[in-house]
């Protein structure tokens, strides 16, 4: 029977494995998992019931939806996974898990080689050192990466691609692997369900269709939760007519973090954030400009602030002394110029292109110009809109740079996320190693508890933006990490043939909870004559404004130049609690608003985690991303550690605690080069 808005249909399904999300990570999981599922069937006749659920359409879902112009993690045959783990650590101010980074590092190129085989055009350098775009390279007969082809490096770890259809290609392979029957698109997952008999075990997940009046409830032994990071929890710089423009595509709403926390999974480094300095208003990528075109950024008076303010790096030993300063410290130097009134900040595209012209032929110059535009057209069309709308030709006119509002993510240049079980062969701490005091009793000790990428909730796995304390995985690393998790998930299901999860709520309770914003609307809509004005409910949009205002003004948003302190955090804490209470009054007048309501709920929990972690960590670990003005220093003695937390969905309270940080690769190598 087809459901109605008043009485939605409830669809119930039992699975072995559920994948939540259809981004880079889940596409990797699907690809790897289905091959192992085939092997299992061939060897034992046993068939696993697997399903992938995405809130959008996989061809264009997630952060890679618009395309990309570079693959930011490719190790190549000349670098060591240990170098990669060191870079990740350095950019994230020393607090990352080397086991996770190293494992991504040694496996990531396999995924990149597959992407190329599937049809992603990858730029190549020929024997004469001439660059060719991906299609031309193939026509010229240049070898594939896997056969020794040389990519065009835009940086130490990045390679250039023609990536307008990047996600389309990766999704096609994942969809082929799964088969269309195992895919549900346009279903938004609202919450995970724990096991009735063991609250530390997963039992399933529930959500609703954004197209039909249907609620979906899945029982599953194992769940992959990879629904991306979180955008729009802070008031964005672009409001009003520009709203919707943000650096991070607006569709990832913290679902990964909120649902994991509610399920009781241990979170890690939720104080971390990413504040990219990008082309102002369009948020176009700057990587190619800095790395490939060798452009410099300067204040309004032409001063290169990285040189001018370099002494400021000495305030943060040893991180300030690295050959390449961490992203946050680069912001720190830029912010000084802005705060002291020497903005706007510019990317000097004019000088960079003029210099390149001196060395190149007219044909190469034309190609170069196309490259500069492609960089935007492949992944951030809105930036081109600004350039043409403002008559900006990069060879004639410089472009403004600006640090954005903060975003939370774990796979780009950020490391917030979920605490997961890592690989066992890299020397990571085990249960026998010493841990800091204060870690709740029920949580595992050591960095491995049986299954790669499993969270501290049995059967709940994550990858990509979900895995915390790593970062710099990017598109390729997220795919590879999803693949590593797939094996852990299959193993978990095979090792536990007897688990028969039971829900800790009835299906009626689950369905009613999901439909609550609709009920709020239907019950009260006739109380007033204007649909948006009603004392009995709050529209998701208004609630979002309230959240963004709190975060912006008290939790180090752009309004305060990323400053906060203990007192401001206390205020935020109180206000967020009230907001969480009021979120129960959100209304949904249609399915689209129901989506918005639950996205905002996920944002609130994510925001709360962020705020609590910043409050707990009594230092400013990421100068340039945020400052606690009451503790405005990096404190290596007391805070060179992870900050982790758990959330209790019954009492709605967070508990934060420290975990010991251990190096698995030698970090001192980072700092030697810069010491003289």
């Amino acid at each position, binding site marked *: 029977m087809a459901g109605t808005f008043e009485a939605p249909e409830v669809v119930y399904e039992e699975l072995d494995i559920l994948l939540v999300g259809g981004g880079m990570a889940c596409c990797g999981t699907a690809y790897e998992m289905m091959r192992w599922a085939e*092997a299992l069937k061939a060897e034992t006749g046993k068939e696993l019931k697997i399903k992938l659920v995405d809130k959008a359409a996989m061809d264009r879902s997630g952060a890679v939806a618009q395309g990309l112009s570079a693959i930011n993690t490719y190790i190549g045959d000349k670098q060591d996974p240990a170098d990669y783990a060191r870079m990740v650590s350095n950019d994230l101010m020393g607090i990352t898990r080397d086991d996770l980074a190293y494992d991504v590092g040694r*496996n990531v190129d396999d995924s990149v080689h597959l992407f190329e085989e599937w049809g992603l055009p990858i730029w190549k350098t020929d024997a004469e050192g001439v660059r060719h775009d991906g299609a031309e390279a193939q026509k010229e007969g240049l070898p594939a990466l896997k056969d020794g082809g040389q990519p065009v490096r835009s940086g130490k770890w990045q390679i250039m691609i023609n990536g307008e259809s990047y996600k389309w290609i990766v999704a096609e*392979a994942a969809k082929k692997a799964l088969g269309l029957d195992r895919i549900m698109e346009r279903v938004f997952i609202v919450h995970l369900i724990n096991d009735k008999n063991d609250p530390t075990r997963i039992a399933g997940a529930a959500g609703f269709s954004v197209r039909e009046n249907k609620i979906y409830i899945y029982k599953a032994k194992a769940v992959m939760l990879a629904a991306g990071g979180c955008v729009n929890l802070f008031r964005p710089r672009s409001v009003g007519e520009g709203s919707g423009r943000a650096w991070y595509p607006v569709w990832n709403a913290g679902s990964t973090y909120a649902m994991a926390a509610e399920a009781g999974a241990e979170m890690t480094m939720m104080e971390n954030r990413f504040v990219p300095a990008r082309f102002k208003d369009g948020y176009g990528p700057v990587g190619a400009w800095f790395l490939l075109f060798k452009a410099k950024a300067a204040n309004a008076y032409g001063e290169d602030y990285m040189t001018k303010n370099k002494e400021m790096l000495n305030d943060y030993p040893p991180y300030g002394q690295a050959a390449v300063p961490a992203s946050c410290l680069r912001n720190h130097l830029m912010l000084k110029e802005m705060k002291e009134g020497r903005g706007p900040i510019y990317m000097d595209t004019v000088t960079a292109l003029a210099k390149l012209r001196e060395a190149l032929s007219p044909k190469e110059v034309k190609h170069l110009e196309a490259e500069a535009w492609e960089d935007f057209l492949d992944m951030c069309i809105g930036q081109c809109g600004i350039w043409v709308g403002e008559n900006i030709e990069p060879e004639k006119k410089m472009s403004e740079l600006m640090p954005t509002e903060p975003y939370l993510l774990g796979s780009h240049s950020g490391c917030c996320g979920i605490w997961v079980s890592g690989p066992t062969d890299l020397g990571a701490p085990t249960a026998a190693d010493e841990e800091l005091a204060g870690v709740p009793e029920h949580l595992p000790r050591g960095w491995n508890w049986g299954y790669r990428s499993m969270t501290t909730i049995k059967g709940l796995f994550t990858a990509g933006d979900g895995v915390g304390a790593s970062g710099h995985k990017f598109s390729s690393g997220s795919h590879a990490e999803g693949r590593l998790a797939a094996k852990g998930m299959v193993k978990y299901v095979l090792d536990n043939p007897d688990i028969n999860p039971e829900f800790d709520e009835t299906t009626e309770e689950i369905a009613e909870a999901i439909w609550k914003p609709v009920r709020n609307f239907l019950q009260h809509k006739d109380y007033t004559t204007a649909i948006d004005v009603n004392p009995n409910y709050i529209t998701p949009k208004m609630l979002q404004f309230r959240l963004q205002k709190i975060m912006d003004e008290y939790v180090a948003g752009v309004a305060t130049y990323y400053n906060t302190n203990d007192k401001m955090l206390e205020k935020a804490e109180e206000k967020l609690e009230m907001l969480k209470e009021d979120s129960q009054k959100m209304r949904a007048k249609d399915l689209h608003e129901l989506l918005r309501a639950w996205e905002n709920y996920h944002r609130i929990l994510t925001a709360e985690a962020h705020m609590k972690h910043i409050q707990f960590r009594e230092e400013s670990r990421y100068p340039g991303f945020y400052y606690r003005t009451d503790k405005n220093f990096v404190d290596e003695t007391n805070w060179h550690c992870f900050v982790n937390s758990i959330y209790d969905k019954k009492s709605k309270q967070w508990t934060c605690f420290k975990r010991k940080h251990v190096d698995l690769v030698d970090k001192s190598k980072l700092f030697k080069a810069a010491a003289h």
Partner: protein
Amino acid sequence: MQPLRGSDSIMWTIKFRNGTLKRFKFPIRTTAEGSIDCYGGKPMPKMSELTVDGVFTRSMMGGFRAGNPAELIRK
């Protein structure tokens, strides 16, 4: 800004406020849409290898970077 997306490339026509026109053409993929044979020529893993590190294509995609063991200081 006007895109024209074909099967192997995308063409862009962009027009500036001052009327300047630019046209670009970029490749988007090197295989036909829908043609990916995702497991074609790929090994069928053995379940006994499920716990071995690496992905199932490790032996043939040339992407596994074993790393210098001396770099792992706690091993």
